[in-house]
């Protein structure tokens, strides 16, 4: 019977508290017969051809991914890497309430074409790893991916409890998982992920490193990256992002679906396009504003954002300003609000929106 796989995605940087939580989890789970624990570099930073990415793709059954990211961000980063499955629902209390659970499943199950095959999508980003020449509209693999946010709790026990709960839940439905054993992991490349304790030890003894790069034990350098991640459960394929970004980050897959094609052309720190996306579908997992970093911002007891009340510039103002900064850095001319600003926003009456309008709107969105 395949075990439940637990993947711990390491924090960026060398925060000792974070590393300790990772180590405690690995230590506790290594001795648990019901799970297989693995430690990988930060998910967001993994290149498509990194061995850890290939390892992730090779996991056959249910998987729990613990990362220092909002679950929604983690889920769509994995999706972009062709690590897919149904969303597993964690019962852990989280800072960002994610009750949306099956939100994306209907759209994706009935294969409405918005979501092309990720192998096609990898064009801009190096090759895939060989499998997946299938046509579009693949069904979502019949397994669950649980994404847990390691920032929610500081006590490893909380996570261990939830992992055991999921493990017992999963053991009831493990029978049909064998059908998913299609891909062939390359054993020698994968082995290192199955020895997380050695890996931790190796890391501890690693010599001091450039602060900006996290080097995993296998020697593959993982650079910090910065790029948009599309939440296809929200994206309406409206094309506003591709019109707005002047740096060639976005592209279309063969079926005309929006795609983050040239991830590494994105400007570090620039979150501009996420502000123009009308569906709030563009996530920058490393951004400090939770709504941009992938917090689930529209359900449950999520807090009201009072930023407008306290003087926030409008999203479009901000986006255009941020884009201009990057244009100047590239030695190009600033364009302000003249290019790629959606009509719906441009044609708005000049009178600045009252901050209270925005408040009311945000409440309407909450359906109070």
């Amino acid at each position, binding site marked *: 019977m395949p075990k439940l796989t637990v993947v711990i995605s390491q924090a960026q940087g060398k925060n000792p508290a974070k590393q300790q939580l990772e180590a405690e989890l690995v230590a506790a789970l290594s001795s648990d017969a019901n799970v297989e624990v693995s430690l990988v570099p930060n998910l967001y930073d993994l290149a498509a051809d990194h061995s850890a990415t290939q390892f992730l793709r090779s996991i056959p059954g249910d998987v729990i991914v613990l990362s220092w990211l909002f679950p929604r961000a983690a889920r769509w980063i994995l999706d972009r890497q062709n690590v897919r499955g149904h969303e597993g629902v964690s019962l852990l209390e989280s800072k960002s309430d994610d009750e949306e659970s099956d939100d994306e499943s209907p759209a994706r199950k009935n294969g409405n074409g918005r979501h092309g095959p990720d192998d096609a999508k990898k064009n801009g980003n190096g090759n895939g790893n060989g499998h997946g020449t299938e046509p579009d509209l693949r069904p979502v693999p019949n397994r669950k991916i649980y994404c847990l946010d390691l920032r929610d709790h500081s006590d490893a026990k909380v996570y261990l409890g939830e992992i055991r709960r999921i493990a017992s839940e999963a053991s009831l439905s493990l029978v049909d998982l064998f059908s998913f054993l299609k891909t062939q992991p390359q054993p020698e490349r994968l082995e290192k992920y199955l020895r997380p304790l050695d890996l931790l030890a190796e890391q501890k003894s690693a010599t001091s490193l450039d602060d900006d790069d996290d080097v995993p034990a296998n020697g593959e350098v993982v650079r910090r990256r910065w790029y948009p991640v599309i939440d296809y459960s929200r994206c309406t394929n409206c094309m506003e992002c591709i019109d707005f970004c002047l740096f060639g980050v976005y592209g279309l897959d063969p079926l005309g679906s929006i795609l983050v094609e040239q991830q590494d052309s994105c400007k570090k720190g620039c979150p501009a396009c996420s502000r123009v996306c009308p569906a709030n579908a563009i996530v920058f997992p490393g951004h400090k504003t939770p709504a941009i970093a992938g917090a689930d911002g529209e359900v449950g007891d999520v807090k*009201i*954002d009072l*930023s407008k009340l*306290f003087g926030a*510039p409008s999203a479009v103002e901000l986006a255009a300003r941020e884009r201009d900064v990057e244009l100047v850095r590239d030695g190009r001319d600033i364009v302000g609000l003249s290019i790629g600003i959606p009509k719906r926003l441009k044609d708005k009456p000049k009178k600045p929106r009252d901050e209270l309008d925005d*408040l*009311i709107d945000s*409440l309407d969105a909450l359906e*109070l």
Partner: protein
Amino acid sequence: MSDLTFLMGKFEARIPTDRVYSDNHLWLQADDEPNCYRVGFTAYSVRLLQDVYFLEWSIDPHSAVHKKQEIGEIESSKAVSTLYAPVDGTILDFNERLLDDPSAINTDGYGKGFLFRMQTEVTFLTPEEYVAHLAAGWDKTEKLIKGQYN
């Protein structure tokens, strides 16, 4: 001089007349040095925020800022917000006591719960003007206040 009040539903937001106001709901009270103010949240802001439990500044003391520049983050039991400079000027220093425990924002928002000190040449709203500013937007907020906080 007696304080003004602004009625938020049943809640009376007190607007003291010994200071001036910015349109983004901060009060400013002249400090010792010229053009220097203590700055804090008005009762109106605090009422919307409810219990503040997290406050963080993203700029260093003695930073020049421009209006609407992001300067920090706040989180309360009910809301989150980025914080923005009210006007062009220089943020001199932050209220240290809030950094460990921001509860003074709720208990003494017009006094010990001030946020920072700022130097600027800009003129601000008088208490009367600020109350008028609040009144102008009130109809729309009423629904919010009632639905959320009463």
